[in-house]
């Protein structure tokens, strides 16, 4: 698609009207929301469906014989089907609703770990993981006396695949890596990583939290064994997330939590567990969250992830260029393949001071270590300022970011 065609196909002015919050003011300035990697804003379609659910359909699911319970169950399971189609899973039973990516990874670490990890086994993660893809593995490794190995990265923030190949061994039970880095924006070669791991007989989890809102994901084409993401990073509500897992693996794994809905029969002597996906969904779930996520997926599908991806790429290239022209600014994360993230440091101002000054200009960015302390350590910095874009952002907003940074320089010299 040419640039002109992208612009015609991608009417950002109209799309922004779908998000009420984008027309609000902050400190008397129009909101420039550039913290999309932390959470995305919600379109009317998502806001409305939650309201409708609580006003007209609210009931507990799976158990009731009454009308509302059937409606609520139908809507919730319909949302599961939307997720299944969105990531191209083979079956609805491979889509487990969780609280979010963190919950999904903890589920796999605990359940896969307790089923398959023994003393001396190894788990491989990468140097650019979010704490949520580090700590759950540290916890289970400690419990099972397994060893955690780390794929290193280069100065541009790209994983060193040759080093990954050297780490793989018969002891490697599972590889868990991030698709798109939340602090650097690097798009990792996950297809290659999955192939190498599978050739080695290892299982693979992909942390897709930062990928799903920016690039199309096909779990069967990738052939990953697990895929985790959060609803709120793809314009859905908080408190809902997804764990995709291959049915054959999930069937072998022990349940994660016990309770209602995940059982077939309970006696004080013995409990038998429910089928997938319910075996991993103990208790009343976040019903409205699931339905809201379904609406978010419908919304994204209407725009199309290919169109989103190409528009965002254009924004990212524009942002990279104008930020590179700011004197004293250094971009952190300069991988060849990147999505959404512009992480940077300034010579004379600490990221928190940058964040406060930009905030007064109505510009929301994230500052700090972004829950990736090992990444900060790797680059020898305590923190970064991070602007993260979504399809509803514009070049004008990136210009406003640069003007805001100029104010920081005015104050800090």
């Amino acid at each position, binding site marked *: 698609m040419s640039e002109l065609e992208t612009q015609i196909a991608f009417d950002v002015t109209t799309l922004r009207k779908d998000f009420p919050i984008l027309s609000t003011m902050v400190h008397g300035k129009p909101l420039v929301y550039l913290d999309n990697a932390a959470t995305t804003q919600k379109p009317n379609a998502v806001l409305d469906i939650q309201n409708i659910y609580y006003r007209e359909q609210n009931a507990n699911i799976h158990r009731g014989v009454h009308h509302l319970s059937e409606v609520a169950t139908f809507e919730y399971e319909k949302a599961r089907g939307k997720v299944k189609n969105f990531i191209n899973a083979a079956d609805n039973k491979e889509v487990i609703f969780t609280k979010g990516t963190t919950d999904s990874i903890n589920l796999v670490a605990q359940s896969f770990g307790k089923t398959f990890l023994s003393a001396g086994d190894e788990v491989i993660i990468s140097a650019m993981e979010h704490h949520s893809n580090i700590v759950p593995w540290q916890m289970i490794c400690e419990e099972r006396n397994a060893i955690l190995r780390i794929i290193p990265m280069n100065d541009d923030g790209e994983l060193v695949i040759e080093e990954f190949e050297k780490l793989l061994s018969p002891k490697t039970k599972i590889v868990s890596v991030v698709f798109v880095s939340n602090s650097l924006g690097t798009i990792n070669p996950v297809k290659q990583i999955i192939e190498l791991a599978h050739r080695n007989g290892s299982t693979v989890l992909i942390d897709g939290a930062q990928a799903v809102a920016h690039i199309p994901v096909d779990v069967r084409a990738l052939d990953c064994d697990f895929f985790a993401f959060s609803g709120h990073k793809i314009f859905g509500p908080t408190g809902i997330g997804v764990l995709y897992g291959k049915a054959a693996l999930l069937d072998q794994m022990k349940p994660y939590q016990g309770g209602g809905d995940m059982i077939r029969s309970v006696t004080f002597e013995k409990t038998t567990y429910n089928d997938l996906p319910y075996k991993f969904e103990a208790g009343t779930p976040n019903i409205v969250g699931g339905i809201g996520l379904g609406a978010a997926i419908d919304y994204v599908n209407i725009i199309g992830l290919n169109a989103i991806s190409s528009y965002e790429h254009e924004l990212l290239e524009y942002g990279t260029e104008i930020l590179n022209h700011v004197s004293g600014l250094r971009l952190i994360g300069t991988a060849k393949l990147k999505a959404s993230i512009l992480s940077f440091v300034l010579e004379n*101002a*600490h*990221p*928190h*001071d940058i964040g*406060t*000054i930009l905030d*007064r200009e109505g510009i929301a960015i994230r*500052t*700090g*270590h972004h829950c990736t*302390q090992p990444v*900060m350590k790797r680059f020898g910095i*305590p*923190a970064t300022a991070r602007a993260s874009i979504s399809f509803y952002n514009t070049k004008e907003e990136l210009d406003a970011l640069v003007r805001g940074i100029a104010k920081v320089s005015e*104050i*800090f*010299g």
Partner: protein
Amino acid sequence: MSELNELYQQLILEHNKSPRNFKELEHFTNDADGYNPLCGDHYHIWVKLDGDIISDIGFKGSGCAISKSSASMMTAAVKGTTIANAKELFEKFHSVIMTKIGDDIPEEKIKELGSLGALAGVREFPARIKCASLAWHAMNAALINPKQAVSTEQ
């Protein structure tokens, strides 16, 4: 821009650029770590006590302009004073920066703080209050209970 100017006063920027007592003490009696896990600001504070007099104090580490200037001004203010005076100053400082937005702070309360009064503007920025108090918590930890890490997350 007025609240921002109030926050980033020349005095604060100057302490940020050239922090006082920004050094590790060779001879010290007490020390402690100050760390904010939410943002990663991290300082170490060394104190040399002669009886109940803080005869020397130094700090090192990294953080934002607010945390660094607060640490710098704090060390300048407590050096040569008694432990009791330092603690009293902390209480006064704390009560000023914790004053609710919109509530008046009596002018004499700010005057009592000397140059530290420059940090009073931080109360307009609730997310930054922890930055201003980080080094103080670390000093308190050093004075009461040497060689222990202190966290702003309790």
